[in-house]
C-alpha cells in the first residue's frame, strides 16, 4: 500500500517544498535602483500550511476510501451497479493523479491565503503551470510513444500567434481562441507528422526542430506579425479580472484549470488501449504492428495531441502577458521543456509535472534567495556572505548547472526522478 502511494506523496512533498518559499516571500521590485527587494511574510506561510493540510486531508480521504473499498467493500455496498464498481476501483488512482494539479489550484485560490499571495508570486506560479502543461503534453510523444521532438515550442508559439493575429481583425477573446488553438494546433501537428511518422527513425526530431526555427524566422520577418517586436494584444481578448478576482488571479485559475484538464485527458488516454498502444510502439514497433496496432495512426494521434496541448498553452501565455513575440519558440524553450520531461521521468505524467515545477521554480527561487537573506536581519547574521553569494552564482550559472544535472541523470538515473509508475499501478489494478 505504501509503495503504491509513495510516488504521489513524494511528488506532493517535492512540489510543496519547491512552491512554498514563494508563498512566504514577497517580491517588491525597485525600479529606481533596479533591484528586487524581498520580504519574509511568515504569517502567509502559516496560512499556506493551513491550506496544505486541507489538501492532505482530501488526499487522506481518497486513500482511506480506496483502502476501504479494497478491504471492506465500502464502494460495493454504496453503488452496486455504478460505474465505479465496474471500473474495478480504478477510479481512485485516476483521482490521485489529479492531486498535484488540484493542490496547485487550491492553495493560492484558497480564501484565507488568496489575499496574501502577491501578484508577482501568482505570475511565477502561472508560468510554472504553463510549463507543466507543456511538459505533460510533450511527455505523450517523447515519453509514452518514444518519438523525439526537438521543436515543441514551435507549437506553443503557433497557438499564441494564431490567437494574436486573429484578434487583430475580429473580436476573438482567449476563451474562443483556446478551443480553436487545440483544433488547429492538432491539425498542424498532424500535417507535420504525416510525412515523417511513416518513416522509422528520428526524422520527427529534425522536422519539428525545423518547424520551430522556420516559424520563428517567419514571424520575425512578417510585417503584419510585428517582426521582432511581436504583437501587443487588445485588452478585450486577454484575461480580465472578474467576480472579485484580480487579473492575475483569473490568469492563474485558468492555467490551473487547463492543467487539470490536460492531466485528466492524458491520464485517461494513458490507462486505455490507446495508452497501451503508445507504450507498445515505444517498446517495439514491429511487434506492435504485428499484434494489430496501427502504428502510424497511433503515432500521429500522440503527436497531434501534444501539438494541440502546446497550442492551448500558447493561447494562455498570450492572454496572460498580453504580448506575443518570436522569442517564444527559441530553441532554448524547446530544450527546457524536454529537459523537464527527462528529469521528471519519461512516460510518466506525474514525473513531467514534477520536473517542470523543479526546473522552472528552483532557478527562480535561487534568483531571489540572496536578497531575501540580505533583507532579513536574523538570517543575514547567521548565513555567511559567501554562501549568500554562492546562491547568486548558482542562479547565474543555472544553464551550466542544468547541463551537469542532465548528464548525471543520464548516467545514474536514466528513467528520471519518478520513473514510470505504470507497472506498479497496472499490477495492483487486477
Amino acid at each position, binding site marked *: 500500500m505504501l509503495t503504491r502511494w509513495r510516488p504521489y506523496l513524494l511528488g506532493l512533498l517535492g512540489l510543496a517544498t519547491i512552491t512554498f518559499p514563494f508563498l512566504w516571500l514577497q517580491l517588491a521590485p525597485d525600479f529606481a535602483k533596479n533591484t528586487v527587494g524581498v520580504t519574509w511574510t511568515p504569517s502567509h506561510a502559516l496560512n499556506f500550511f493551513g491550506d496544505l493540510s486541507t489538501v492532505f486531508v482530501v488526499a487522506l480521504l481518497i486513500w482511506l476510501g480506496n483502502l476501504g473499498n479494497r478491504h471492506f467493500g465500502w464502494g460495493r455496498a454504496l453503488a452496486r451497479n455504478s*460505474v465505479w464498481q*465496474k*471500473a*474495478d476501483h*480504478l*477510479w481512485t488512482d485516476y483521482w490521485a493523479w489529479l492531486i498535484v494539479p488540484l493542490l496547485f489550484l487550491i492553495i493560492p485560490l484558497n480564501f484565507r491565503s488568496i489575499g496574501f499571495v502577491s501578484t508577482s508570486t501568482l505570475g511565477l506560479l502561472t508560468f510554472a503551470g504553463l510549463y507543466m502543461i507543456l511538459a505533460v503534453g510533450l511527455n505523450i510523444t517523447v515519453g509514452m510513444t518514444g518519438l523525439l521532438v526537438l521543436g515543441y515550442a514551435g507549437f506553443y508559439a503557433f497557438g499564441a500567434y494564431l490567437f494574436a493575429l486573429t484578434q487583430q481583425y475580429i473580436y476573438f477573446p482567449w476563451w474562443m481562441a483556446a478551443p480553436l488553438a487545440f483544433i488547429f494546433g492538432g491539425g498542424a501537428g498532424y500535417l507535420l507528422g504525416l510525412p515523417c511518422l511513416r518513416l522509422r527513425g528520428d526524422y520527427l526530431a529534425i522536422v519539428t526542430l525545423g518547424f520551430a526555427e522556420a516559424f520563428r524566422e517567419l514571424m520575425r520577418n512578417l510585417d503584419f506579425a510585428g517582426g521582432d517586436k511581436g504583437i501587443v494584444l487588445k485588452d478585450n481578448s486577454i484575461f480580465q479580472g472578474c467576480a472579485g478576482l484580480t487579473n492575475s488571479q483569473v490568469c492563474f485559475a485558468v492555467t490551473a484549470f487547463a492543467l487539470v484538464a490536460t492531466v*485528466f*485527458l492524458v491520464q*485517461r*488516454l494513458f490507462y*486505455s*488501449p*490507446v495508452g*497501451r*498502444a503508445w*507504450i*507498445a510502439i*515505444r*517498446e*517495439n514497433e*514491429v*511487434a*506492435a*504492428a*504485428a*499484434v*494489430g*496496432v*496501427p*502504428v502510424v495512426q497511433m503515432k500521429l494521434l500522440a503527436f497531434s495531441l501534444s501539438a494541440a496541448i502546446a497550442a492551448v498553452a500558447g493561447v494562455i501565455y498570450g492572454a496572460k502577458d498580453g504580448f506575443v513575440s518570436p522569442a517564444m519558440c527559441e530553441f532554448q524553450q524547446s530544450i527546457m521543456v524536454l529537459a523537464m520531461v527527462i528529469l521528471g521521468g519519461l512516460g510518466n505524467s506525474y514525473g513531467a509535472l514534477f520536473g517542470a515545477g523543479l526546473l522552472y521554480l528552483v532557478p527562480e527561487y535561487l534568483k531571489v534567495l540572496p536578497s531575501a537573506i540580505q533583507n532579513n536581519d536574523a538570517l543575514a547574521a547567521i548565513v555567511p556572505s559567501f554562501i549568500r553569494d554562492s546562491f547568486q552564482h548558482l542562479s547565474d550559472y543555472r544553464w551550466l548547472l542544468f547541463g551537469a544535472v542532465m548528464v548525471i541523470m543520464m548516467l545514474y538515473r536514466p528513467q528520471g526522478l519518478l520513473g*514510470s509508475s505504470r*507497472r506498479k499501478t*497496472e*499490477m495492483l*489494478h*487486477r
Partner: protein
Amino acid sequence: MTPLLETRSLSKTFGGLKAVQNVDLRIEANRIVSVIGPNGAGKTTFFNCLSGIYRPDGGSILLEGRDITGRPPHQVCQLGLSRTFQNIRLFPEMTVLENVLVAQFQHRSLSPLPLLLHSPHFCAQEKQSRDDALGFLDFVGLAQYADTLSSSLAYGLQRRLEIARALATRPRLLLLDEPAAGMNPQETIDMVRLISSIRDRGLAILLIEHDMKVVMTISDDILVLDHGVPIAHGAPDHVRKDPQVIKAYLGEEISN
C-alpha cells in the same frame, strides 16, 4: 472450398538475392504445416512476406480468399493472421499481462467520449479485456507471472508469452517462427503439447522449426525451402525420404 491461406508464386528479392522464389502453399483450416530448410533458405523472409512486414515482389497471398498482398502488418493481423518472432520481440517494459492486453487493441472500441468519461460500457470492456488476457496467459501456463515484467521472464517463458500475445489477437492462422529454439528437451516436449492444444482450439498453424523431432511429430504437411526455392512439399514421411531434401541438408557427397 477456399483454403485458409494460399500463396501463389510468392517471390521476394533483396537486390540480387532471390530470398523467396515462386512459393505456392495452401493451408487448410485446423492443420499444422511446417516450413523447413537449411539456414538462409528464406523461411523467415517467407513469414515476413505473409505477415506484411515485407512487401513481396511477385505473386499473391490470399487469406480466406481475400487478397492481403502488400497490406501493412496491422491490417494482416486484423484479418486473422498472427505471428511470433524468431528473435523474441516482447514489450520489455510492460508486464506479462499488459503484453497480452496490447494485442486486444483491434477488438476494442475507441470512441473518445466513453473512453474519457469511463462509461459503464468502457469499464466493462476494460474488465473483459483483463479477464480474456488472463485466460490466454492461463492457457500457455503463465497466469502466475501476470504481474512480472516481461523482460524478467525466463527465455522459454518469453516464447510462451509471445504465443499468448499472438493468440490474443484472435487469429485463425498462427505463424510460429522457431518456437522451440534454444529449449531443453523437456521444454520442447511442453512446446509441442502447447502447439497441439492451439490446434485443438481450431486454429491452423504455420511453423518454422529446426528441431526435426518436433517437425516430424506434429506436422500434417511440410514445405522444404532451399535458397528460397520450394524443393519438396508433402506429408512428413514423404519429405523425409525425398532425395533432394537429403541433399539440401547433408550435401551432395554423402547422399551419393
